[in-house]
């Protein structure tokens, strides 16, 4: 099909189908979509436009990724949700790619349309930066797995119908080789969720305690021992979503202008040091937007590379922004609470900025990734990479 024909078809379909009334939270959001949005997304999916690059047997149109993007752009131009799921949904894509026929039949459409919600069960108290050292265990028992362990930093755990679970099924092989990836039903006896009290005072993330939880064997993605491969694919989609979030926000200017307004309101706009800092921060924000925009159009394989820089670049912007705000407010930054809203906002953002520099891989891990995967520098030395996990646990135990 030619591009022109495809675009004409999509436009005709959009014109023929009345748009949903409610606004959508976005298909990349973990939350379940509202009912009439789900109805709409089911229609989009039935037409093949939710996942155009997927094979026909999974509800796609078998288009190239490039043509699929054309479809998505038409929906975006019309302000309509439901397309582009083949690029940005973590559960739909890894289930399509790695799932069993039974799990696909049961869940794939629900993930594509947002009828099912999910959360990410990756990090553990003992496996943060070193994610491959997870100790949550899954033991096969007939037609299901029995899971025990503890996960942490889980957003939307309360709402989720399924958890994308990284766990260990083999303890006698090196750590990356003993991992498996399961779709774990969250609404069951063996799952206990406790909110984490964060430094900002909020309780957005959760701890998830898993005690003899049951997962149908058909919910295994790929094979036992192939969990790290699935994990990498899932992280790839997550980075894409985060990267696009950074590009689509286009808030660089506005956030920068807010600093100018704050400096004006506090009589600091003529302070040469403050001026210098604000100008630099606004430039960093805008350059980051420009880098992300270039990443989208780079056809030479540099795109993904540029994308992964964005999160690291935002860290210096956000922490720098907080520092300048503190300099502008001066002594009033000593205060907090509803009686001092500008101080409260500053203090909140100063603390919240650590979400960017720690969450989703710390800046330090990010620098390793950039250095190794983009620049081709040698990998970090990992003393536990080649030995059975049980053995490295014993070493860690004696050291501790």
């Amino acid at each position, binding site marked *: 099909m030619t591009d022109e024909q495809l675009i004409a078809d999509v436009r005709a379909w959009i014109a023929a189908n009345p748009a949903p009334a409610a606004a959508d939270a976005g298909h990349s959001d973990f939350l379940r979509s509202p009912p009439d949005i789900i109805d709409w997304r089911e229609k989009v999916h039935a037409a093949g436009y939710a996942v155009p690059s997927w094979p026909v047997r999974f509800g796609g149109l078998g288009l190239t990724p490039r043509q699929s993007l054309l479809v998505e752009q038409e929906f975006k131009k019309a302000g309509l949700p439901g397309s582009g799921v083949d690029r940005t949904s973590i559960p739909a894509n890894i289930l399509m790619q790695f799932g069993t026929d039974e799990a696909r039949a049961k869940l794939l459409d629900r993930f594509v349309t947002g009828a099912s919600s999910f959360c990410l069960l990756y990090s553990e108290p003992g496996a943060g930066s070193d994610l491959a050292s997870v100790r949550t265990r899954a033991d096969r028992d007939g037609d299901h797995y029995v899971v025990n362990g503890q996960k942490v930093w889980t957003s939307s755990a309360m709402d989720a119908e399924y958890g994308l679970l990284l766990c260990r099924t083999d303890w006698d092989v090196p750590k990356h080789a003993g991992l498996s990836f399961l779709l774990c039903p969250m609404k069951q006896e063996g799952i206990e969720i406790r909110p984490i009290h964060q430094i900002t005072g909020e309780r957005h993330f959760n701890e998830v305690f898993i005690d003899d939880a049951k997962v149908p064997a058909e919910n295994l993605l790929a094979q036992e021992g192939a969990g790290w491969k699935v994990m990498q694919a899932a992280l790839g989609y997550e980075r894409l979503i985060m990267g696009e979030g950074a590009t689509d926000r286009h808030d660089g200017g506005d956030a920068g*202008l807010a600093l100018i307004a704050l400096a004006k309101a506090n009589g600091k706009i003529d302070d040469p040091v403050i001026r210098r800092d604000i100008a630099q921060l*606004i430039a960093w924000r805008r*350059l980051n937007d420009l880098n992300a925009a*270039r990443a989208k159009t780079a056809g030479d394989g540099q795109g993904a590379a540029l994308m992964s*820089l964005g999160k*690291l670049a935002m860290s210096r912007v956000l922490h720098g922004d907080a520092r300048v705000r503190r300099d502008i407010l001066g002594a009033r930054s000593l205060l907090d609470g509803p009686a001092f809203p500008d101080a409260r906002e500053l203090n909140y953002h100063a603390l919240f900025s650590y979400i960017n520099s720690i969450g989703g891989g710390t800046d330090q891990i*990010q620098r*390793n990734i950039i250095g190794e995967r983009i*620049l*081709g520098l040698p990998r970090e030395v990992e003393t536990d990479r080649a030995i059975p996990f049980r053995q490295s646990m014993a070493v860690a135990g004696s050291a501790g």
Partner: protein
Amino acid sequence: MPVIDSEQREAMRESFERLLAHRCDEAELRRIIAMQDGHDAALWRDMARIGLLTALVPEEHGGIGGGAQEIEILMEEAGKVLLPGPFLSSAVLATVALTESGDAAAKARLLPALADGSLIGTVAIAGEQGLWDGHDGDVAAAGGGENATLSGVAGYVSDGAVAGLLLVVAGRGADRRLFEVTDRAGLTVTPLEGFDITQRLTRIAFADVKAREIAGGDAAAIDRMIDIARIALAGRQAGAARRNFDITVDYLRTRIQFGRPIGGFQAIKHMAADLLIERESAISGARAAAEAHAGGKGNAAEIVAMASFAVGEAQVKIAFDALQMHGGIGFTWEHPCHLYLRRAWHDSKFLGSHDLARDHFLSILEKQA
């Protein structure tokens, strides 16, 4: 107005890259900069022959009628190899000084010669304080039209010693006007020893020097010239930053200490990751400024102001850290690290300092806040 598509632009960039690969590799660069005037006439002729000097010259005067995007991408190539000589002075400053004026006769007489390389031009803009925005001009013009005379001193004139065409900004602020020196009597061009040994700066004294006024060469036209020159400079900075970074990462992959490449040590690896942000930002900033200018976008002034400090900041950071990461070899004259550092510092002050650009950028934004 003719439109150059991205394919033609890419073809031009490629031919420049190919030429420079053998005519301005490191050995050639060192040969050229060891010469008194730091200018390779044969390379200049070859650049002219493949049309590189015509980028900003309108078609009716023998050029290709390009704009900011064409010159930016060529300047990236020039920056990569630290091209010495009067490319920026002649093909950008002098050329744009004329194209932005309203002087049809001067354009018809001078632009074809600038485009074919037979004439090298430069523009004296700053005074001895080194301000390019019209605040320190020490050259005063008496009279006007065909019979003007110039007196005073211009500072930091690039390539003044090799330029056959000397254009001069006289006056200050809104009263600035552009002149062409018509008789060298009373003119003293003093070469200055420069920190960036790939560039040649001069101080030029004028004692009742005969000059012709360029019609329509007013303050607004002069500011438009400086804008395009700053975009070109940003391109040159981005190109140098990019190559300097790439050379450094190659070194990190191959230099062995403690039994492994030094790029494997986090102290170094993490510096390199941070510098990649600078490399990409330099390229994005320079290209965005060129694109905004070429597209006549409303925010072009703001983006050009941003590029005028942010691209250079990125380049300086890369140059500074690159030398550190090279360790002892970087401290040697024979290694190119110091050449990139010298260029970075040069470009960060030439055509105006980062501090002034930052302040200008913020002043534009203040009107929106």
